[in-house]
């Protein structure tokens, strides 16, 4: 990993220390070029015209789906559908699967609201939602799923890595239980796909949702991968049909079926370029580097008297998303001071995971999250600033 070269692609880092990548990552110049390149050089609609630009953009848009598929080990397997974000992916599955009264969904206390609300809303239709809890280490126990997944369980939907405490979940073990019991498994990969190799086949997934904007892509880009794309499309209209008459219509095959209307084409070009960027850097090298930074960040925080860190501490068992509190200081104040005094951007509050925050027995936390462009010096600067805050300096 050539850190200097990487940082040159993020000129914004000359002015700030960005430790909020779990919220949204920064966007490197090549991704910006890809987005602007579309508007500048081949701006046209996809799948709708015979003219040259339409041909070019259609091919690139299709290639973007393939590139993303390859990135998650899904070449020629299932269907990659472009969405706005992970949230839209989860909602697509919630609205597209056929639900009957008494069907059961199993999820966990670790989830982001986006992997809770689409399922909670199904309670109105008589669907039961079971929430599996964890110990304070924040790692799910597969044994709990042996009992939670019943014959009526249609779907198990879990985060791969907590967006609050970063803990990585034993998904493969749980997906094997799902297979045995005939339940589908959906993985929220928003915090994992950007940071380490996620392979849909190896994990035995049925659905995978993730967001482009957390993996160097533009905002408004996301992915829903389906092993078997036989869910009902949520929207109907332009671009997703094979044939329409006044009393009949037939949906298109493939991803087009789920992408009604003109899609976010420029975003797709950016996301595709982001996949290339991460592949070029090397996702395994990136993971090792982030582990190293995470280790130092956690160790440094633990050295401070008034600071408590949540979730398992071993950086091998988590991503670089670290939640902590300075005793006696409101997390929002900590975040404010980090920016005010040292130009450090972190997130504070409930991180769109209120049930987990409550489960941890706190009102909120400060969350520092790392990515490939962060440096050891930045981590040290962050730690010394937190120390100052903890000492009331």
């Amino acid at each position, binding site marked *: 990993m050539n850190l200097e070269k990487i940082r040159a692609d993020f000129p914004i880092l000359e002015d700030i220390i960005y430790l909020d990548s779990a919220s949204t990552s920064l966007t490197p110049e090549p991704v910006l070029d890809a987005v602007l390149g579309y508007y500048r*050089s081949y701006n046209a609609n996809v799948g709708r015209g015979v003219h*040259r630009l339409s041909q070019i953009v259609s091919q690139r848009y299709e290639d973007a789906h393939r590139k993303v598929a390859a990135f998650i080990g899904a070449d020629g397997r299932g269907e990659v559908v472009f969405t706005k974000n992970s949230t839209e992916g989860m909602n697509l599955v919630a609205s597209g699967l056929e639900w009957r009264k008494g069907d059961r969904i199993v999820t966990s206390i670790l989830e982001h609201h986006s992997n809770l609300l689409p399922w909670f809303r199904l309670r109105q239709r008589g669907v039961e939602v079971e929430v599996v809890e964890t110990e304070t280490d924040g790692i799910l126990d597969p044994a709990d799923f042996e009992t939670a997944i019943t014959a009526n369980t249609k779907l198990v939907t879990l985060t791969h890595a907590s967006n609050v405490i970063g803990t990585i979940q034993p998904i493969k073990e749980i997906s094997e239980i799902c297979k045995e019991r005939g339940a589908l498994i959906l993985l929220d990969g928003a915090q994992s796909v950007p940071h380490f190799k996620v392979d849909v086949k190896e994990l035995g997934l049925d659905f995978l949702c993730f967001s482009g904007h957390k993996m160097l892509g533009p905002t408004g880009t996301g992915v829903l991968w389906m092993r078997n794309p036989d869910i009902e499309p949520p929207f109907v209209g332009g671009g997703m049909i094979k044939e329409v008459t006044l009393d009949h219509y037939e949906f298109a095959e493939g991803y087009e079926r789920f992408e009604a209307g003109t899609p976010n084409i420029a975003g797709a070009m950016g996301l595709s370029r982001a996949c290339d960027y991460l592949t070029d850097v090397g996702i395994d090298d990136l993971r090792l580097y982030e582990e190293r930074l995470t280790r130092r960040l956690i160790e440094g925080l633990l050295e401070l008297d008034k600071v408590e860190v949540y979730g398992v501490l071993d950086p091998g068992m988590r991503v670089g998303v670290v939640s902590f509190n300075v005793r006696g200081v409101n997390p929002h104040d900590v975040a404010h001071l980090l920016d005010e005094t040292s130009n450090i951007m972190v997130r504070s509050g409930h991180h769109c995971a209120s049930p987990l925050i409550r489960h941890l027995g706190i009102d909120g936390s400060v969350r520092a999250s790392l990515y490939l462009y962060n440096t050891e010096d930045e981590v040290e600067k962050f730690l010394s600033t937190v120390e100052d805050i903890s000492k009331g300096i």
Partner: protein
Amino acid sequence: MLKEVEVLRISDGDRRQDLDTIVEEMPLALYINGRHVQTAMISPSMIREFVIGHLFSERVVKDYDEIESIQIDENIAKVLIKRSFGVINLKKVVLSGCGGGSSFLDESRIPKIDRGFKIDPEQLLRSMKKVLSLDLHKKTGGSHSVGLFDKNGAIVITEDIGRHNALDKVIGHGVIENINFKDTFVASSGRISSDMILKCISVGIPAIASKSAVTNLAIEIGKTSGATIIGFVRGVGMVVYTGSLMQADE
């Protein structure tokens, strides 16, 4: 590649309904950067190799990295080349051979080949035998076969209704496999015309041999470029038009 059709067979005054084995031919429309540039009539095999080889042998690209995307959908091959989306003017129908091939090669800018390459005549005879022994050629008599060889033997041998197509396919295979063409030679069942030798030297293949004839223009290009051209490679003999063979003691 092969099809059986009902035919009326006439032989020595005798007429009978019979089945005959024929070679398949398909049109392949090539689109580059959204524009239809050519339709080639080819045998339905190694289509991706054909497309890549064609782009190289016609000097549309020089580097594999220049090809951003190839999508093949039945009779259409759509290619995106990494450059501004200007018009690549190549539009015409390429026939399956007989001078319908190439192209926009500028013969005044013929690439130069290292004159040091020498073919071992014994290996060439063996190679040609291999090239001519392919199934399609034997069964139908309606195809050309072309092989790419190096000192260790055959890298790839393929057949097509057109000798240009077959050559493009072996070149495409070589590109995909990252073969260093300067250590290879081509053995072909079909005659060596100017466009055949031009395709070879465009990617740096220093020698081409055929079991059949060689044209005057091919020889001119062979001399200008330094490439080796050998015709009538049959039985135990051959005719060397340009370049030189390896001596027995080499």
